[in-house]
């Protein structure tokens, strides 16, 4: 099937977020993606744009890298503006060419509104939106003494702060009677003004500029309608934003009365092949000038393109919390108290410079909105009351009174329901955070990287920390999960430390995070296994040799008399007569006891240490590979004969079993892994007793997970049904990698699942719905492991250094081990029992 083409116009915050979501989703495989960005730089964090003045570079602010785009196979055209769209032939046109699309996403953002004042187009009249704008402002401020920001809203005050930081005297000119008219009321605005003025920024309200002309003492002069004027060296317009809908308008898409590309709940425009997300999109007659709603649209669209019929954008909360010129300002919900019948409670302390207004419902039970100036302390708590409909205490005023005046302490994170939204930018709930913690994220940083919480606007940082601390503390009460006396960490934690810090040897892990200088037989193999899961180096590499269990060291299973058994891999249990003959010949030559195992392969017993490499040389020459019967890794994938021969078979179970075995062979895991593939529901391969069980259906494959035979049998759970080959592999990749990362040492998948908080449903969310957003990473990790597979035995027999290890007695090659004594039974050799030797 040839791929469809998806074109994204605009490489801003929302466009990039969309690509992150979409490339990690299954549908990405069906598309060739093209992206056009008018700016010369790869998408960056506009929210933290002002940090560019404080030494940040584009690289610091960048949301992605060119390498990332290349890895995803995205064709990224930067510095290439789309100039028109031809919807009939489905093409976008740029000065460099025209490009066909099947699906088009407009993420063109918005542009700063510049009021139509005569003279507004002169040199030193600037805007504040892009890195290029900031370069111009910096250049203009250089050599200037004063700067004016037109617009006293959120962005205007931020721009004023930037001017101040560039060393110019900053003024703010606002048309409305107060600052931040959208978010604040008169009292709040007044307090903010006094605070900002005390910081040296001059505020001029109720000023309408009539013209901008050449100045006398400075470069420019602004004349106001009241006859007054102001001289300045540069002007930054920050009088609001307008959706960038020119392309859409020109190609005849439906546009809102006051601009904005009209979209429905699925982010589709009036043309079903064209979508719009972010600040250019008009939903329910609203433009959202914040990044969080744009991200939500991006996620919605990704789900829509993946065929999720339930995906719908449902609006977004516009509450904001900022520090403007060092002054806390917060605005929540219905800040202006426009809900009929609502009640207002105000707290105004001029002395300490704190203003708080609480808008509550008529029945006094719910928070509808709030305004905070001077101290955002109660913001998180109030927002949680408002968003989650938490019932107010009897005297709601305690929520806005300072604690010294009888105010209530902040709502503890414990009081929040699991559904409470903690990070609205990335749509992370308290429940998600708990899941991430349970899955092994044991500090703030790990939770951030697992959930992305607080990596957007950053407004939720404090709340996130509270929730994480509280949840960790709760879990801290649990019994010590320390691996052993050398590592005060669980296996998961060690995995994280090793992975995140790129630690490659036991020694450096011990030095950095361990106790003492030796390790032991508990931590060494556990760490060896983690190192192998992370980096997949040869287990007998010099640094790793002393860590391995004897079976891994000698890549064979030690038997009671000190000899070894050899189990070559027989993928899926399928073996040619020629290979069978080789096994027979080798067994005969070395007098090895031969047995068919319960895993559909052949075990050869009784080899001495020094015979192992000789035997493997012969097996490798005949095309055999190691079977990892010794490793905490994939053992066998048991198959039934399937549709090729069996009259009931509906899929090629042998083919799938061989594929799975070859894919996952060599993966080091917390414990051994077994799989089974049956060709129909009669289940002759006993897949439901395996860690991973696959059963054919007439539409594809049913996947079962976390079954176990052995000491405590457990039936596998049905995980997903009617999967295609690709879906099956992606689900298995994710389940296995998640297990590898989060299980305890020597914990089979069955026990792991039983101990996993949230159980099967949680595992389904992580794997099938990608609730932790780590699906792509897990698959990539698996791809790395698969890509670095080597037959350990092959590498070992070819390396004289490694072969040295297989000497029974290093100083006496001819010496036989006297305790190994043999007898014959049923025509084969077996060890003499103790009772027989005595």
């Amino acid at each position, binding site marked *: 099937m040839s791929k469809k083409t998806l074109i994204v116009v605009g490489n801003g915050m929302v466009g990039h977020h969309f690509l992150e979501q979409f490339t990690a989703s299954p549908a990405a495989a069906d598309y060739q993606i093209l992206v056009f960005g008018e700016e010369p730089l790869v998408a960056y964090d506009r929210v933290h744009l002002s940090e560019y003045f404080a030494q940040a570079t584009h690289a610091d602010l960048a949301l992605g890298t060119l390498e990332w785009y290349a890895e995803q196979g995205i064709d990224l055209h930067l510095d290439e503006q789309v100039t028109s769209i031809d919807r009939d032939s489905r093409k976008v046109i740029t000065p460099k060419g025209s490009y066909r699309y099947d699906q088009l996403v407009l993420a063109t953002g918005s542009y700063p509104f510049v009021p139509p004042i005569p003279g507004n187009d002169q040199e030193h009249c600037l805007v504040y939106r892009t890195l290029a704008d900031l370069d111009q402002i910096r250049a203009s401020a250089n050599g200037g003494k004063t700067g004016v920001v037109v617009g006293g809203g959120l962005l205007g005050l931020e721009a004023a702060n930037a001017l101040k930081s560039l060393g110019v005297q900053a003024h703010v000119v606002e048309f409305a009677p107060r600052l931040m008219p959208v978010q604040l009321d008169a009292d709040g605005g007044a307090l903010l003004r006094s605070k900002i003025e005390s910081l040296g920024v001059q505020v001029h309200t109720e000023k309408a500029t009539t013209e901008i002309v050449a100045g006398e003492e400075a470069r420019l002069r602004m004349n106001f309608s009241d006859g007054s004027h102001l001289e300045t060296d540069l002007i930054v317009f920050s009088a609001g934003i307008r959706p960038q809908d020119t392309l859409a308008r020109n190609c005849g898409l439906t546009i809102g009365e006051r601009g904005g590309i009209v979209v429905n709940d699925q982010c589709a425009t009036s043309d079903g092949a064209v979508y719009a997300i972010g600040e250019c999109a008009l939903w329910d007659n609203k433009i959202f000038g914040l990044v969080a709603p744009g991200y939500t649209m991006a996620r919605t669209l990704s789900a829509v393109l993946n065929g999720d019929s339930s995906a719908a954008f449902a609006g977004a909360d516009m509450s904001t919390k900022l520090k403007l010129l060092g002054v806390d300002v917060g605005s929540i919900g219905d800040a202006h108290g426009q809900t009929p019948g609502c009640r207002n409670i105000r707290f105004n302390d001029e002395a300490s410079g704190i203003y708080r207004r609480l808008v509550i419902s008529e029945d006094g039970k719910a928070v509808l909105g709030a305004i905070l100036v001077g101290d955002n302390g109660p913001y998180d708590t109030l927002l949680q009351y408002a968003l989650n409909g938490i019932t107010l205490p009897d005297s709601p005023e305690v929520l806005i009174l300072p604690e010294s005046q009888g105010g209530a302490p902040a709502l503890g994170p414990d009081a929040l329901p699991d559904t409470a939204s903690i990070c609205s930018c990335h749509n992370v709930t308290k429940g998600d955070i708990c899941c991430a913690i349970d899955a092994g994220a044991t500090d703030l940083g790990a939770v951030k990287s697992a959930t992305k919480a607080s990596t957007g606007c950053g407004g939720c940082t404090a709340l996130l920390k509270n929730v994480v601390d509280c949840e960790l503390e709760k879990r801290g009460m649990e019994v010590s999960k320390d691996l052993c006396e050398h590592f005060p960490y669980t296996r998961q934690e060690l995995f994280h430390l090793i992975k995140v810090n790129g630690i490659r040897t036991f020694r450096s892990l011990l030095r950095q995070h361990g106790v003492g200088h*030796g390790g032991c037989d508990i931590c060494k193999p556990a760490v060896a296994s983690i190192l192998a899961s992370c980096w997949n180096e040869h287990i007998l590499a010099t640094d790793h040799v002393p860590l*391995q269990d*004897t079976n891994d*060291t000698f890549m064979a299973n*030690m038997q009671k*008399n000190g000899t070894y058994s050899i189990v070559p891999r027989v993928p899926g249990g399928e073996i040619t007569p020629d290979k069978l003959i080789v096994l027979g010949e080798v067994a005969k030559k070395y007098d090895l006891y031969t047995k068919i195992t319960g895993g559909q392969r052949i075990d050869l017993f009784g080899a001495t240490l020094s015979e192992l490499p000789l035997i493997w040389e012969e097996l490798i020459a005949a095309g055999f590979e190691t079977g990892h019967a010794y490793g905490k890794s994939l053992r066998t994938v048991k198959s039934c004969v399937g549709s090729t021969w069996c009259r009931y078979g509906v899929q090629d179970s042998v083919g799938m079993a061989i594929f799975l075995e070859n894919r996952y062979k060599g993966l080091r895991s917390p414990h051994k892994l077994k799989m089974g593939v049956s060709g129909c529901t009669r289940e002759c391969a006993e897949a439901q007793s395996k860690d991973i069980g696959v059963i054919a259906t007439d539409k594809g494959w049913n996947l079962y997970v976390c079954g176990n035979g052995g000491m405590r049998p457990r039936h596998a759970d049905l995980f997903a049904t009617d999967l295609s080959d690709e879906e099956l592999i992606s689900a298995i990749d994710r389940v296995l990698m998640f297990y590898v990362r989060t299980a305890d040492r020597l914990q089979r998948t069955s026990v792991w699942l039983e101990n996993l908080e949230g159980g099967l449903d949680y595992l389904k969310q992580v794997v099938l719905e990608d609730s932790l957003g780590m699906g792509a990473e897990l698959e990539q990790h698996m791809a790395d492991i698969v890509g670095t597979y080597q037959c350990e035995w092959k590498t070992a027999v070819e390396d004289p250094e490694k072969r040295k290890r297989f000497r029974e007695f290093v100083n006496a090659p001819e010496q036989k081990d006297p*305790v190994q004594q043999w007898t014959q039974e049923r025509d084969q050799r077996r060890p003499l029992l103790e009772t027989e030797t005595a």
Partner: protein
Amino acid sequence: MKPRTQWQAVCTVDDLVPDSGIAVWTEDGPVAIFYLPYHLPALFAISHTDPFSGSNVLARGITGYLKGQPVVASPLYKEHFNLRTGVCLEDENVKVKTYPVLLDGDLIRLEVPVASATKTPNAAVQAA
């Protein structure tokens, strides 16, 4: 009565595996030599025979430290043996033989009893 001993050269430093063990054949049977490069002394020698199974496997166990003592874990049933004293941590009544070991240039030498068959008449004299 101390039997007559000799310092038998059993291998060279190249044969050692850091943080792990190798087995050598001596006049006194199989001996396991461990090399712990981060420890002083760095060389230990104990019997290669696992007292619990009777098999010659101890050199193939994992080395480590428990409660500050250098140990090896038997690869068969995982009991730990103190490399200094040979005492089993799980059962103090069980003890494997230990041997003095030294580095002589590039050679590793073990102090082992002179096997009875090769005993010279002097042995009796010395013992007396």
